[in-house]
């Protein structure tokens, strides 16, 4: 599904190399987790995949089902099935959450040559998905993320994901700032979408989310590279010992 090969990325405005050869393969049907110290390049990886401005790819490739992601506009990447749940969801005053969701859903359907949802169909769908995430009607009426608590914003990201039904879902610290119950809701939301045709890349600092969403593979990122990959036990090791041991071991190798 997602293949990243030797990806090197620097900032556009500064001569600063952030990703220094990221290589990663997430096959359909699998859940991969990325962990790593602050500033190691996890969010940058997700932004570059989603097409944010401000970064320059100096080397390497990234493909989604064989399509060259890096050559596509952000909206085309979304239509191709990529979704990024932001670490910091953006507030957009004056744009209603419903308008936003409906515009996004229908834009993607249109890009894929599918019929747009009618107002009625859309409303029914969004109510059903919102209910599962414990998002009330009042929140849907408000402007996008404006006045939402940290946890509400994260749940709103998952609602968008549930509505858009992407095939490659990247979640950047969606668990940060969530209370125990919200964590459960988010994990349920992710698990409900798990299928053989879909893959997940879950960026997290904590083992807890991974208790709920069992990853197939855990990657450790440090200084702009994936330095180690392993099974779910790798996350436990990080939780217990921090990164020092792993980084030292990699440095020795």
């Amino acid at each position: 599904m997602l293949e990243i090969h030797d990806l090197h990325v620097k900032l556009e405005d500064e001569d600063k190399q952030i990703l220094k050869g990221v290589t990663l393969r997430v096959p359909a049907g699998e859940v991969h987790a990325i962990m790593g110290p602050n500033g190691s390049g996890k969010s940058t990886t997700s932004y570059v995949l989603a097409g944010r401005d401000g970064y320059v790819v100096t080397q390497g490739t990234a493909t989604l089902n064989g399509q060259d992601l890096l050559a596509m506009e952000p909206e085309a990447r979304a239509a191709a099935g990529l979704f990024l749940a932001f670490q910091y969801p953006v507030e957009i005053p004056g744009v209603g959450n419903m308008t936003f969701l409906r515009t996004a859903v229908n834009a993607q359907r249109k890009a894929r040559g599918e019929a747009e949802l009618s107002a009625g169909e859309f409303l029914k769908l969004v109510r059903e998905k919102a209910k599962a995430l414990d998002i009330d009607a009042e929140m849907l009426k408000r402007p996008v993320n404006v006045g939402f608590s940290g946890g509400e914003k994260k749940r709103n990201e998952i609602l968008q994901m549930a509505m858009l039904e992407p095939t490659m879902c990247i979640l950047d610290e969606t668990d940060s700032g969530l209370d125990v119950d919200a964590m459960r809701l988010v994990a349920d939301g992710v698990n409900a979408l798990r299928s053989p045709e879909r893959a997940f890349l879950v960026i997290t600092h904590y083992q807890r989310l991974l208790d709920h969403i069992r990853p197939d593979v855990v990657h450790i990122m440090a200084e702009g590279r994936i330095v180690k990959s392993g099974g779910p036990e790798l996350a436990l090791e990080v939780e217990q010992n921090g990164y020092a041991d792993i980084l030292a071991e990699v440095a020795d190798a």
Partner: protein
Amino acid sequence: MPDSAVLDIMTPSVGGQGAPDPLSMRLGTLPQGGATTAARADALARLRAMGLPRPRDEYWRYTDPAPFTDATVAAQAVDPAAGDPPLFSDVDRLRIVFLDGRFDAAASDDLTLSGISILPLSQAQAEAGHWIAGAYGRLEAAGQSPVPRPFAALNTAAATDGVVIHVTGRAAKPVQILYRRADAAADVVCHHVLRLDPGAELTLLESGLVGARGNLVIEADLATGARLHHIAALRAGHPRVSLTHLFARLGEGALLKSFSLSVDGAHMRSEAVIDMAADDAVAHVAGAMLGDGRQVHHDDTVFITHAGLRGESRQVFKKVLKNGATGVFQGKILVRPGAQKTDGYQISQALLLDEASQFLAKPELEIYADDVKCSHGSTTGAIDETALFYLRSRGVPRERAVVLLVLSFLADALAEIDDEGLRERIAERLEDWLNTRPAAVG
């Protein structure tokens, strides 16, 4: 037959070296006044005393007065098919149609409506003893100090028609002034007078194409507890030169909400002069404008004077500028001595969609009372790239995302329209316009 009193005053009194002065040139032939003759003569005297504005005048530094002072106006082809479909057509309202600035009885609805009496100015001034004799030009005259507004005096002197409305109760439905044009060179001067009795309420809508050049004045006198909702949405579709003035006086506890939507056009200035002399009055003036192209120059000039206690005023102006368009905002809050507990708020913001466009803002506060709350702010910014990326990452194409962000930028101004149905119509119109002209937004 021209009125001789008016003609006498038209003779240049100063610097008359034989050649006609620019003011006489600009005025041309004045219409007959009837009950408004004296008021028109007074206005002309005021105008003579202050003269036409010059580019160096304090309130004309950002907007060139020449297109308004020129004796003639360039013809603008009339293409009935161009521009937008009529606005408010599905709203239950009473229509008063002006064709090239003159009342068009055949196209207008029956002017009978409960709670309100409506007459074209041309008829009202012909009625002996009509109250218009004492009201016409009164608020305009009062609004000439401390800042002169020569074009409003010119309008009072020279208006060919307008509408005279007396609201005695709650108007049964909104009244719409609809401007239509046929003459490509129509130089329209309309003057509307509104009088709202205590507790009366009116929604006034203005829309359509005024003329190649338009000079519009509204005088609105609101008695105790009266409420006036005003929405002006003049149509896009030709490079109009337009100057509008709203003069309002608010009685105790009266409410004025005025919103204007402006799309493209050429050289435009919209002034609001609000007198809040009585206690507990509330005035909100707001505007949303979109300008695409170097020929677009749009100026909002607002002057709100608080003299009563606990007055509340809000100014909310938003401009979206692109391809070299210019936006101007000059907003003033004057709080007179003793106007305690005044709550004055002013915000003007421009969204520049490129670097060729510009926004010039001159916010002013002048406060002579100590127990007041007044704030103002002005910002100029570009599209928020983070929000744009967020929308695009959800699959919203760039052009559509920009439209959403433009609407989001304008939302605070639209929020000043109380009536939800009318607000949605304005929002839809804006959205249609943005969607059908994607090139206009980047």
